[in-house]
């Protein structure tokens, strides 16, 4: 029986301001199994990224239950969620979110700074992650010296350097041309297939989504089948 890595049960997310309330997600039930490659699709503003943020434990559900590896994380405090994210999760963003003032190695090292790793272990893991994404030759470059595809590969190296179980990618190919998009997709597939990493990816691109195990469609804040 497949084991659920992360599951949302009857989740609702409402954004509130002084003047208005916006329902971003409503009645969401979703389970992602270990080792699965899931794509989330839907039109702009439908709640895809909100869903990904809830799966990534970087946003909180207004209502409903979130469980990770069988444990409820809904009521965990920030101080308890932080080490969980550090150990279990890796993030890849459309706009890379690399720190421009740091070299590639220092960018990749960021998640390891918040875990219990010696300096030598951090260095070893950074080089290994860069080798996985094929950027070991660019270790001492600054992000601005790299192409978009290379920057995204650095971001992927940063996401996997902590050897997480779940990799969350928010439109990872959205800012790239088709050639580079294919490279990034191939890399995500390889991480899923060869390393058993669970991958959840938000995308607009049907051809990319078709390469995953399952497509979850979101429309007006609800999952549609």
């Amino acid at each position, binding site marked *: 029986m497949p084991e659920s890595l992360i599951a949302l049960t009857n989740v609702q997310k409402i954004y509130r301001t002084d003047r208005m309330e916006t329902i971003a997600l409503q009645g969401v039930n979703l389970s992602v199994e270990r080792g699965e490659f899931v794509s989330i699709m839907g039109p702009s503003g439908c709640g895809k990224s909100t869903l990904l943020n809830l799966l990534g434990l*970087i*946003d909180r559900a207004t209502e409903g239950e979130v469980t990770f590896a069988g444990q409820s994380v809904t009521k965990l405090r920030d101080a308890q969620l*932080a080490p969980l*994210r*550090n150990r279990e999760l890796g*993030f890849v963003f459309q706009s890379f979110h690399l720190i421009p003032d740091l070299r590639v190695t220092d960018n990749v090292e*960021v998640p390891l700074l*918040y875990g219990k790793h010696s300096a030598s272990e951090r260095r070893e893991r950074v080089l290994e992650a860069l080798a996985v994404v094929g950027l070991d030759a660019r270790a001492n470059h600054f992000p601005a010296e790299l192409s978009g595809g290379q920057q995204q590969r650095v971001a992927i190296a940063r996401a996997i350097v902590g050897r997480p179980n779940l990799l969350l990618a928010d439109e990872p190919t959205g800012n790239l041309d088709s050639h580079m998009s294919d490279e990034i997709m191939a890399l995500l597939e390889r991480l899923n297939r060869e390393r058993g990493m669970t991958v959840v990816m938000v995308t607009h691109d049907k051809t990319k989504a078709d390469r995953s195990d399952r497509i979850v469609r979101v429309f007006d804040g609800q999952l549609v089948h």
Partner: protein
Amino acid sequence: MLKNYLKIAVAVLLRRKFLTFVNLFGTVLTLTVLVVAFATLESVVSPSGAQHRNDHVLAINRVTMSHSTEFILRSSGPGGAFFTSYVKPLRTPDLISLTTQARTGTSYIEGRKLTVQIRATDAAYWKILDFGLVSGRLLAPDDIDSGKSVAVINEATARDWFHGQAPLGKRIVVGSHSYEVVGIVRDEPQTSALSYSDVWVPITSGETRAWEQEFLGENQVLLYVNDPAKRDAMRDELAARVRPFNVNPDPVNYNTLRAPATTPFQELAALALGRNDLRRDDWQSDPSALFIAVMIVVALLFMALPAVNMVNLNVGRIMERAPEIGLRKAAGAPTRVLVGQFIFENLVLTLLGGALAFAVAPVILGVLNDVFRHGQLRLNLPVFVAGLAFVGVFGVLSGAYPAWKMARLDPAAALKGQRYA
């Protein structure tokens, strides 16, 4: 982790060079002004050089005659007649001295015009103050009693006049008077009000002794007591003695005499507070406490300036880094670690400002040492460290608050660049 913090701290400082410059300028300016002001104050009031026994000394620099009801007064330094009538009879002081203030004298030597400060002294002056004798001797009682035309000069004058030749036994001319050099002493800075001069001669060596009959004159009286605890008693005895103004040089116009005996600090405090307005009787109260309070308030306000500047810049800097904060939080950075990172960055900025101030302040002090004759202003390390700590604490607090607010944002909100405000 600190290495990574340091890298990002340096990078952030270089990212906005002008903001960094403004921030550093504020810190450097504050610390430098603080250090220079304190060095000047210390030079004026602290016992050092010939005045290292200041704790035993009070000086009368100004005597004021006024009328209790009519708006009329005369004020100047103490004259010979005042000294004889009001100071000499005092029993508390162990030594008393009457000297002229340092005055500018001109001389010409080998076609060059030399301007020196000259002071005419009695014998007690050399016992009250402790000049560093380089060679020869100090003025002796016999020089004063006989009105000899002899002089003690300082090292700077010896260099300027004699260019490496031995000055002892040679003559110098100041104004129209010629003196034989009998001793050389170490330079005393212009900020030392009691000891500063270039040339010292007997008070009796002038062409006339009319000064002995004058009630007011450009002189200075020093009162010395062996036991510093008796300084107040000395002051009280003087105050009691001048109260009945019974040696009135002009009984029609004046019936009140004031002659405050002060420490250099009290003198400076009164000057700074404008309390030497001689129509008032403020000398009876010690201005030191008020002066210290004002100085502390001014120093705190002055140091608060870069602190506020730092708060402003830090808020802007931290808010523009919202996506980085979001990324770090997503990567598992706890709030306290993120706050620690920003505090560390502020500490780096403060220490950098401190290091620059540490380099700049001695240069400014050096310039001032050229402005003040024989200046000996020095950097006071404890004051510098205290100022740095104050600026540092404000810097840390100024960074900690916006960092704490930002670090508490949900990572998703921070990644979108959302600000806490």
